């Protein structure tokens, strides 16, 4: 185990930022968000960022291809430039797990080269939680918030930051900043882990489980009439989708710049009435169907296609951000009685 005193944290950040782009959670205009590190940027004390860390690999908007129009001729241009290496520091256990969910979508054949390229160049430095919120339920998905996954795992104690490399990429990063770090035993880390585990055991959602949805329940769940009342108050906004670390739907659109076309993709939400517009219109005609789609996807369809892995990591963002406080926990709890 390696450690660095908190007083030298800035040196660590500076050292990383010197070699590659570094992003850390920082408070900006009242909310915690991953921000490109520049000397002096202070790390946020918030439990988690408002937006998840998926943005780094699956940004909200990205150009896929440019068409340059010249009179009656069109030139096709790949807008991608060399991707720089980057480090995302301070990813929580839930978000750290979300990448493996996203990988199952974007790295499955056919591989999404835009996503793969970013994954390749990104190093994840995760941070153990010590003060989880009542909305946290990552434990329901087997995530250990006190010892999160990632290329490097960190623990922040009163006086020091402890680091452990988990992967080759992690080793490489540690190697680059080795002179700043000192060897240490893991007593402080073990103590923190034990304390955090005790708190996790007290969380209101500690016993929440989605187990019932893993079996052969697709039609039963789909046909439940509980969807009517559950979806009744849904506004059809995209808040849950856009703060979710595992939602991966997107739309591809063309923007006419006046001199050409930029073909870009951007996040889309299955909750939107104009989601998946096609020649025949949107296949899910009512908000109930759209609402059902999102939760069926996370709880039933995704595990059915991915060896039982759910499309949720229990980060709790939707619990605190949904304008009408409808969320996956309420949905799962209401439906499980039906199964």
């Amino acid at each position, binding site marked *: 185990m390696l450690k660095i005193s908190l007083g030298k944290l800035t040196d660590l950040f500076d050292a990383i930022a010197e070699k590659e782009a570094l992003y850390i959670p920082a408070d900006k205009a009242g909310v915690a968000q991953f921000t490109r590190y520049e000397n002096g940027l202070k790390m946020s004390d918030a439990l988690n960022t408002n937006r998840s860390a998926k943005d780094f690999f699956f940004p909200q908007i990205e150009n896929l291809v440019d068409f340059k129009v010249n009179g*009656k001729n069109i030139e096709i241009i790949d807008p991608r430039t060399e991707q720089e290496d980057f480090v995302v520091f301070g990813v929580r256990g839930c978000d750290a797990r979300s990448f493996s969910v996203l990988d199952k979508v974007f790295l499955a054949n056919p591989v999404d080269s835009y996503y793969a390229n970013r994954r390749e160049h990104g190093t994840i430095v995760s941070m153990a939680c010590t003060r989880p919120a009542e909305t946290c339920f990552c434990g329901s998905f087997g995530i250990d918030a006190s010892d999160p996954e990632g290329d490097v795992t960190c623990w922040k104690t009163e006086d020091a930051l402890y680091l452990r490399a988990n992967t080759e990429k992690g080793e490489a990063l540690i190697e680059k900043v080795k002179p700043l770090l000192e060897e240490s035993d893991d007593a402080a880390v073990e103590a923190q882990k034990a304390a955090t585990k005790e708190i996790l055991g007290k969380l209101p959602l500690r016993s929440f489980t989605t187990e019932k949805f893993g079996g052969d329940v697709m039609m039963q769940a789909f046909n439940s009439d509980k969807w009517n009342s559950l979806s009744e108050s849904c506004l059809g906004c995209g808040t849950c989708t856009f703060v979710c670390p595992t939602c991966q739907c997107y739309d591809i659109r063309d923007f006419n710049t*006046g001199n050409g076309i930029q073909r870009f993709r951007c996040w889309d939400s299955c909750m939107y009435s104009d989601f998946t517009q096609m020649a025949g219109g949107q296949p899910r*005609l009512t908000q109930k169907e759209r609402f059902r789609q999102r939760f069926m996807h996370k709880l039933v369809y995704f595990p059915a296609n991915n060896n039982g892995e759910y499309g949720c990591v229990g980060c709790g963002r939707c619990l605190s951000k949904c304008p009408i406080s409808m969320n996956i926990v309420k949905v799962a709890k209401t439906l499980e009685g039906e199964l």
Partner: protein
Amino acid sequence: MQRIGVFVCWCGSNIAATVDVQAVSDALAKEPGVVYSTNYQYMCSEAGQNMIKNAIKEYNLTGVVVCSCSPRMHEATFRKTVAAAGLNPYMLEVANIREQCSWIHKDKEAGTEKAIVLGRTAIAKVQLNAPLQAGESPVVKRALVIGGGIAGIQTALDIAEAGFDVDIVEKNPTIGGKMTQIDKTFPTLDCAACILTPKMVDCAQNEKIHIYSYSEVESVKGFVGNFTVSIKKKARYVDENKCTGCGECTTKCPMKNVPNEFNLGMDNRRAIYIPFAQAVPKVATIDPNYCNMLKNGKCGLCAKVCGAGAIDYKQQDQIVEEKYGAIVVATGYNPIKLDKFDEFGYSLSKDVITSLEFERLTNAAGPTSGTLLRPSDGKHPHTIVFVQCVGSRDTSGCGKPYCSKICCMYTAKHAMLTREKYPDTDVYVFYIDVRSPGKNYDEFYRRAVEQYGVHYIKGMVGKVAPRADGKIMVQASDLLADEQLHIEADLVVLAAAIEPDKSARPLATMLTASMDTNDFFTEAHAKLRPVESPTAGIFLSGACQGPKDIPDTVSQASAAAAKVIGLLVKDKLTTNPCVAQSNEMMCNGCSSCERVCPYGAITYVDKEFRMPDRTTRVRRVASVNPAVCQGCGACTVACPSGAMDLKGFSNSQIMAEVDAICQMK
């Protein structure tokens, strides 16, 4: 994708001198959608137009852009050209490269560059043009005239003369209006009644004219060519068809002390009355405010004396609905109330009167049978002071800011007639300016001064104070002599400003016709369309549009009639195709568009829609009447969902123009 032809005009050297027309047509040839691009000396010439026609055929053009002078100049010309070649005339756009380019730029490079941008902008627009068809709407061949004064009468007679049915709605029991109260008319001094009453009788006898007397307009729906109007016939408690106008009832009615409005309250009439001897229709009316039978159920004398059995105490207001192709507003004017003008003592002395009251005092059918007597003691006045501009040209807020126009002339008339009939009378006229333009008007005024010895004094009266001995002290300044005057007068006559009738404002709302701040109706164009309201199918006659004397009123009345006739002879109206259109699928039914529409062209209908989940739902959606819409586009911006768009100037067309102008190149 359109197949667009571009035609760049040299306009001789007007364009070609500062714009490289060859460069423009070459550059525009490269634009997407352009299949043909050329330039020529005079596109508007027959040869130029033939080039366009031939190219449309040869290259199967679906859209045409002409880069030339202002579309205000030749858009119509080129529309006809493309239509002649079989293209929809609205598939044409004109790029203004003369007035807005070659004529204002001296630098040929800059001018050429701008001309290319303007051409590209027109191309971008025409890409999104859609063929438009002018609509048609039928015309109901009947006109309504609101107001039965001399304006309304003249308009109705002229329309009827052309063979169209016309109805007059008059709120009083008789038609005739203000002119019936006037004694003589300037500048000829012929008797008002002698020239008016034959016209009133003509109206009554004309088969094409129907008079709704003692009636008011309740509501107006519809649009040019097709109005539906509800008219309220107020109960007069006398059967119009039975009453012979013998007048027996009006002499027997015991309620003798009803102020007679015809004589402005200077004498009395009965509760059942005929306003004056030549009233049309000559039918009695019961005044429900005074009739004892109607108020208390006692009396019934008139019914007893009526030989025709025309009295009907149970009569009710009646609503009649009629359809009209055109509506003429002729609601006229009234003198303003003078209670705000304490300095003139109108409410302090009976011998301070208005000019209209003076008319009645000199009229043979008036309260004094035409002998000029003071209202207070019935004596001959020996000194009379006329005060002009009472409440006119008044920016203090008490009166009206405008000139009432008629006062100078009728005051000259009053002064002259007084001096002629009563040469021993001293007559003073106080004026700010004497305004006497008009045929024989200035001569008339000069006669009053020079031949009749009327004392015209430039200056305003400061104070009019009645004295206990019956004399009225008039304090005034003579601006020319620069001295204060004190005149002991027997009678003071105030030339009160005139204002539109109070019924005009609610009527304007019903008609969606606009008014100015003084409640005069606004004309469609102050110079070129002076007898039309901006609202199609609504015409203006007489003083409702602005102060007017009788000759002007009659001129405008006939002009309005001519415009109405011009409308009614058409079987169908073609409508401007560049009108608003509501996309019902996106309309929220919120009424924002309806509220900003100056023409009342938008109505709401409940329609059944198939919803995405295959249920049906009734929704309130906007519907634009293309015959009424004038295409301003106010609704398109008021509409938050973008459901309302304007044909020919659509959101996407305008944005395409913006894009083309801003494009980097």
